[in-house]
C-alpha cells in the first residue's frame, strides 16, 4: 500500500507540469488565436514541422528498411566498415558537425531548406534505425524469404511484398522515434534555417518568446507548448505498446 502512495505522489509530480500547462493555455482561449497570428502565422510553422517530420519519417523508414535487409541477409565488401561508420554517428556529438553541415548544405544548394533539414535528421536517426531494422530482419525465419524466392520472386519483391509486413513493429518504433526527434528538435533547425518563413514550431515558438522578453505573454507561451507537445503525447500513448516492445527487444538483443 505504501508503494502505491509513493507511486501516486511521484505520478502527480511528473504529470503536474503537463496538466498545468494545458490548463494555463486554456484559461484564456484567445491565447491560441493570438499565437496563431504570431509572425508568419501558426499555419506556416505547423506546415513546415509536418513537412519536415513526414520527410524525415519516410526517408528514415525507406533507407533503414532497405539497409537493414541488406545488412541482415547479404554479404558484400565493406559491409562491416559501413555498419561501424553508421554507428559512429552516435559517438560524435550532434552539435560539432552541425556547423560543417551548415556550410556543406550551402554547397549543395540546400541551405535554409526543409529538404536539407530532413536529410540531416535522417542521418542522425540512421544508427538507431538501421540497428533496429537489421535486428528485425535477422529475427525473421529464412524460410519466409526462401519460399518467395522459389516461387520466382526477386529478392526485392520478397522484401517489399512479404518481409516488410513481418517487421511492422520495428518500422513503427523507428518511425515514432524519427517523428519525435524531428518534430521536437530545436538546435538543428535553429542553425540550418535562417528565414522566418521556413522555421519549424520549436524555433518559431522560442523566437516568439525571445523577441518579446519582458512583456512576455505566458498564456500564449503555454498555448505554443501545447501545440508542440500534444501531437507527440497522443502518438506516444497510441503507439506505446509497439514502442516499448520494439525498444525492449532491440535493447536485449543489442
Amino acid at each position, binding site marked *: 500500500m505504501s508503494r502505491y502512495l509513493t*507511486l501516486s505522489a*511521484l*505520478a502527480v509530480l*511528473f504529470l503536474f*507540469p*503537463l496538466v498545468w*500547462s494545458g490548463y*494555463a493555455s486554456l484559461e484564456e482561449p484567445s491565447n491560441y488565436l493570438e499565437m496563431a497570428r504570431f509572425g508568419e502565422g501558426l499555419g506556416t510553422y505547423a506546415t513546415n514541422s509536418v513537412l519536415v517530420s513526414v520527410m524525415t519519417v519516410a526517408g528514415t523508414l525507406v*533507407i*533503414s528498411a*532497405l539497409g537493414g535487409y*541488406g*545488412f541482415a*541477409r*547479404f*554479404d*558484400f565488401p565493406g559491409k562491416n566498415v*559501413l555498419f561501424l561508420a*553508421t554507428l*559512429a554517428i552516435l559517438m*560524435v*556529438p*550532434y*552539435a*560539432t*558537425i552541425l*556547423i*560543417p*553541415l551548415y*556550410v*556543406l548544405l550551402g554547397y549543395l544548394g540546400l541551405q535554409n531548406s526543409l529538404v536539407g533539414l530532413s*536529410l540531416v535528421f*535522417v*542521418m542522425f536517426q*540512421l544508427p538507431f534505425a*538501421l540497428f533496429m531494422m537489421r535486428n528485425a530482419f535477422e529475427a525473421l525465419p529464412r524460410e519466409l524469404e526462401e519460399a518467395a*524466392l522459389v516461387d*520466382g*520472386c526477386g*529478392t526485392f519483391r520478397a522484401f517489399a511484398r512479404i518481409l516488410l509486413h513481418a517487421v511492422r513493429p520495428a518500422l513503427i518504433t523507428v518511425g515514432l522515434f524519427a517523428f519525435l526527434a524531428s518534430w521536437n528538435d*530545436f*538546435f538543428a533547425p535553429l*542553425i540550418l534555417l535562417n528565414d522566418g518563413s521556413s522555421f519549424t514550431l520549436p524555433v518559431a*515558438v*522560442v523566437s516568439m518568446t*525571445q523577441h518579446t522578453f519582458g512583456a512576455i505573454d*505566458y498564456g500564449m*507561451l*503555454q498555448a505554443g*507548448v501545447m501545440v*508542440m*507537445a500534444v501531437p*507527440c*503525447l497522443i502518438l*506516444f*500513448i497510441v503507439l*506505446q505498446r509497439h514502442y516499448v516492445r520494439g525498444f*525492449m527487444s532491440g*535493447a*536485449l538483443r543489442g
Partner: protein
Amino acid sequence: MTLTITRSGRRPAHTAPSARWRSRKVQGWLYAAPTAVIVGVLFIAPLALVVWMSLNRWPLLGQATFNAPDNYLKIGDNPLFIDAVLFTLKYTAITTVLLSAVALGLALLVQDRRPGIGFFRTAFFLPGAVGFAAAGLLFYGMLNNDFGPIDPLLQALHITSEPVKWIGTPNMALFSTIALVLWRFAGFNMLILLTGLQAIPTEVYEAARSDGANRRQVFTKITLPLLRPTLALMLILSVTGSLLAFDQFFVFTNGGPDNSTVSMVMVVYRDAFFRFDLGGAAALSVVLLVALVGLNTVMMRRLR
C-alpha cells in the same frame, strides 16, 4: 554480371529464379547504397570539413584563408570557454548522479507487474515525448514569479515566505535546469534500467533469498552487479547528453544570469553565429569531438 546479359544486350525481365540475375554481392550493395550515401555525404564529409575549417579563418560570409593553428591557440584566450568547460563538467556530474539515482528508484518501484503499474510507467515516461524546447518554455512559465503556480503553492504550504528567484541566481538557475532535465529524462532512463532488471532471472533472486539474504543484500550483491551493463549504457548516454547540453540552457536560462549557465556547446554556437567566426567554432568542435570520443572509449572499457 555477364551472365545476366542476354544476346540482345538487355536484362532478362523474369528468368526464374530471377534472384540470380545479379550476384548477391551487388544486390547487398544496392540495398545498402542509400545508407552509404547518407553516411558519406552527411557524416563523413562534414567530419572532414570541420577539421579543415578549424585550420582556416572562416568568416560566416566571405573568403576562407588558411591560418593554422591560430584557431586552436585562441581557445586558451577565451575565458568564456574555460568557464563553460568548468560549468558543463559540474552540471554533468550533478545531473548524472541525480538522474541515475532517480531512474533506478523509479525502475525498482515499477519493476513488478501488479495492477495499475502500467499507468505509473506511462506517467513517468510521458514527459520524454515533450521536446526540450517545449519543456524549457513550460518550466519557464511554471516557475515564473507572477504567473507560475509553484511560488503560490510553496507559500501556501509555508515552505517559502516569498517568491523564489528560480533562474535569477547562478545556483538556482542550475538547480532549476536540473529539475527540468530530471522531469524530462528520468522516465526514459527508467525504461532502459527496466529492460536490464527484467533480464535478471528470477531464480537468482530465489536462490539468494533461500540462502537467507535480506533485501539490502539482494540489492547490493545481486541486483546492482547484474545491472552493471545496463547502468553503464545509461551512464554513457547521460554523460554524453549532459556534456553536449544546449537546448535547456538556450531556451530556459539563456545562459544567464551573468553567463553563469553557458554550456560548452553554447560557446560554439555563439562563436559561430554571433561572432561569425566559423573557424574558431570548428576548432572548439574538434576539441570537443576528440575529448568526447576519448571519454566514451575510456568509459566503455572501464564499465564493461
